């Protein structure tokens, strides 16, 4: 006991595994009850016609104190951007400004019902209109839908738009081409939209292999999807040729905008020749990731495609209308989710845009790229650097040598970083780099933090040489340690059950 305690951090019950909330409390506990009924009671069985519940659900039975302690304890076991550097490549884990959190909680935003008359939500519509404008401006693509709930949802929406446009033009198509470095959502969205995925290999240099692209393109191809800057953190300098080539067969060029943070104010997907783009507001526009969501994935399209966007979009009112009104584009595909979009997220993104302005957004890109290059330079001695050139906002290291020489894998390095107090980078993505470590520091990390992170990774590379076995067992200091993931998948336990 003592021994164990001596290794248990402060507030022992506050760290390490914790009972499920379903196993806490006394049976009669609860925290918020309905108010006393001030209207005549109803006989549930009568009004519900025999569908009244027979067996009550088993829900937690706890007091408010127990709830706060429980979630405080859980929070203590979590690592967020506020806990330390979170260089998850492709995820843009920048700081989430607190004023955004305040803004979305203002009653004039949080308390709005989605079906209120338009003249009672003019502030909200003005905000969405302003955000549409800003996204059109940074993307160079004038048609904007704020409806998609996340990046993948935006991809799907854009593909639906392409389908509608091709079908509308009497030119239905069946295939979508993507490079092998693409994020998994791209091919998955392709399938959901009823297209077939054609994957082309990337070039040696991580860029699009133009020949492979040309080979894959034909008049049955609806679109080519590309992340640019791409998933190895490089800007594809052939981009104008790529989009031209795609357009040549009557296909659309789609930009996965997950990496917009690198190019804000420096170059615009529309100017690169893309026809459509999604933007992850939860990456580039500083809205929090929420432990997995909610995000928001607005889609920006060319003027020609704007008529297909899902409804509603917000436009300025004309004579006799309020200043801003909802609008259904003429050939709208319909709607990809309920109501307007993830409005609470849009408020945050809008606040961010207004805080920074055009100049500030441009500085974001510059600093993000500068910080990534700085880290890359500091780290390229300790790890393999497959693409040794200027990178954009992120770069990919490889642990191939560490693996070959010491049998230390990238996973070990990642887990060991946890002991040093850092969140690991994205690992094993993109698939085209062996033992990949994809590092995106973001512009909000101070130099101190960048240096401390580089120091840690360099120290770990040293440990790989001297104590590889120690690394296999890392981490040592986290609330739980390496998990048996195989067991979780083999025999899935996906919910609490009462103890017998």
């Amino acid at each position: 006991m003592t021994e164990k305690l001596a290794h248990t951090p402060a507030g022992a019950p506050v760290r390490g595994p914790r009972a499920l909330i379903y196993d806490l409390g006394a049976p009669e506990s609860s925290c918020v009850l309905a108010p006393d009924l001030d209207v005549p009671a109803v006989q549930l069985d009568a009004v519900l016609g025999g569908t009244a519940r027979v067996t009550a659900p088993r829900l937690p039975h706890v007091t408010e104190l127990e709830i706060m302690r429980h979630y405080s304890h859980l929070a203590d076991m979590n690592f967020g951007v506020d806990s330390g550097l979170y260089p998850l490549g492709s995820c843009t884990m920048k700081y989430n400004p607190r004023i955004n959190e305040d803004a979305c909680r203002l009653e004039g935003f949080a308390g709005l019902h989605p079906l209120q008359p338009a003249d009672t939500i003019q502030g909200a519509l003005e905000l969405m209109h302003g955000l549409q404008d800003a996204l059109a401006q940074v993307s160079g693509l004038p048609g904007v839908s704020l409806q998609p709930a996340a990046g993948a949802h935006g991809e799907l929406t854009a593909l639906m738009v392409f389908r509608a446009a091709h079908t509308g033009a009497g030119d239905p198509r069946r295939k979508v081409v993507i490079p092998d470095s693409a994020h998994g959502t791209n091919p998955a969205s392709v399938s959901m939209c009823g297209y077939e995925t054609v994957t082309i290999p990337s070039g040696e240099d991580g860029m699009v292999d133009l020949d492979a692209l040309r080979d894959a393109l034909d008049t049955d191809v609806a679109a080519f999807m590309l992340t640019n800057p791409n998933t190895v953190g490089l800007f594809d300098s052939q981009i104008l040729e790529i989009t031209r080539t795609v357009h040549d067969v009557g296909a659309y060029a789609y930009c996965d905008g997950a990496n917009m943070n690198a190019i804000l104010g420096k170059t615009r997907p529309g100017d690169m020749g893309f026809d459509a783009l999604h933007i992850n507001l939860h990456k580039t526009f500083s809205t929090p990731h929420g432990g997995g969501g909610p995000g928001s994935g607005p889609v920006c399209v060319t003027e020609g495609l704007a008529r297909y966007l899902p409804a509603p979009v917000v436009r300025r009112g004309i004579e006799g209308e309020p200043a801003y009104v909802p609008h259904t584009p003429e050939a709208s595909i319909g709607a990809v989710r309920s109501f307007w979009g993830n409005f609470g997220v849009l408020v945050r993104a809008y606040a961010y845009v207004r805080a920074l302005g055009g100049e500030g957004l441009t500085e974001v890109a510059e600093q993000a790229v500068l910080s990534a290059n700085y880290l890359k330079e500091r780290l390229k001695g300790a790890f393999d650097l497959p693409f040794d050139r200027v990178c954009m906002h992120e770069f990919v290291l490889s642990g191939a040598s560490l693996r070959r020489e010491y049998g230390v894998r990238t996973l070990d390095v990642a887990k060991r970083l946890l002991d040093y107090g850092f969140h690991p980078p994205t690992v094993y993505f993109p698939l085209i780099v062996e033992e990949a470590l994809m590092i995106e520091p973001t512009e909000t990390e101070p130099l101190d933090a960048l240096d401390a992170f580089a120091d840690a990774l360099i120290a770990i590379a040293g440990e790989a040489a001297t104590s590889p076995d120690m690394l296999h067992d890392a981490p040592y200091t986290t609330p739980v340690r390496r998990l048996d993931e195989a067991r979780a998948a083999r025999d899935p336990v996906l919910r609490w059950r009462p103890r017998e």
Partner: protein
Amino acid sequence: MLRAVGVSEVDELFADVPAGARLESALDLPSGMGEIELTTHLRALASRNVAATSIVSFAGAGCYDHHIPSVVDHVLRRPEFFTAYTPYQPEVSQGTLQAIFEYQTGICELTGMDVSNASMYDGATALAEASFMAARVTKRHKVVVSGAIHPGWLTVLRTYAAAGVIEPVIIEPVQGLTPIEAVTAAVADAAAVVVASPNFTGSIEDLAGPGAAAHDAGALYVVASNPILLGVMEPPASFGADIVVGEGQSLGNAMSLGGPGLGFFACRQQFVRQMPGRLVGRTVDVDGNDAYVLTLATREQHIRREKATSNICSNHALNALAAGAYLAAVGVEGLSGIARSCVAKAHYLREELLKTERFSAPWDALFGYEFALRFDGDVDSMRRELFERGYLAGVDAGELDARYDGLVLFAVTEKRTRAQIDAFVAEVSSL
């Protein structure tokens, strides 16, 4: 830093951008604001809206003004939760993971299903994903859908269906309910039968009939539920549901103009490997401690790519966290009490509105805490007039679907008091 990187100005780092794609001018955006100006600006925008929560609202139609326990937002404000990414590194993500595992449990308990995923974007997309899943499981395309479901959800389903993966057949409602004969007539070769109860107009459907029809035809049975009412209503599992979906905003999430909400998605154990979305499972770590982890990821896009069960990546984890905290705050007694309160107040309001004789009942179906009435005048001007007097007089159902022209949809939550209802009815009478 520039020196360390070996460039003399930052623009050199953007040399890969070809001349033709470079943005030569500055972004044409309003210039930045300090926090002080920004606060003023945002408050001004917010004040240009009239929040439903600041007046007396009877609007529902998929987004409800339920009480949010104070403790929920205090949980959500923990930065360790909201500033974290998807819990890919379980060693430092047990907070999110355990909370989601608990959320999954709550959804299973409410719906009676075996497994719940970690959340979807909203109820409408959850329903669309359920249809896609049924098509995958049954290798069929036709989806027999009650036309009485939310018109917005129908639109989403139709939009998703344009891709050709599913083919919805919409069953025209009769007297506000889904006619079982029409379902039976359409069900042959169907991948799924989809019913919502309560449906868009608040009516409670007979869930047993369509379930039997579905199963007889080898189709899956997909039911959309209201999670608050599941506190007092028999879970869809009892009527044979294979997949249960719904909008979970009511569980501790602000209305926020309808987003972000929470799509919940639960199904029977046998279909777990066909489910869309993330799943959190329990396992042990090397020290033998219980620990939680994302599992069955081979269904997902980052592993399975074009063969994935869905393209979903970011979900609505924080809203699920809110739902978990909500269920903990209310417990079974609170939830059933809240549901009873809503139901009783809705029945009271309907009675009183009928007494004014300005409203009439379009049909006589059972309902929970939302119902439709026909107004004897112009709905739009009635709602505007009552808004001026401080009431959000339900939802103009005809605005969502011409089928419902002239109908007003009223939802009554536990937040409404008899005094508010009486005052509202008095205003209606005085129109």
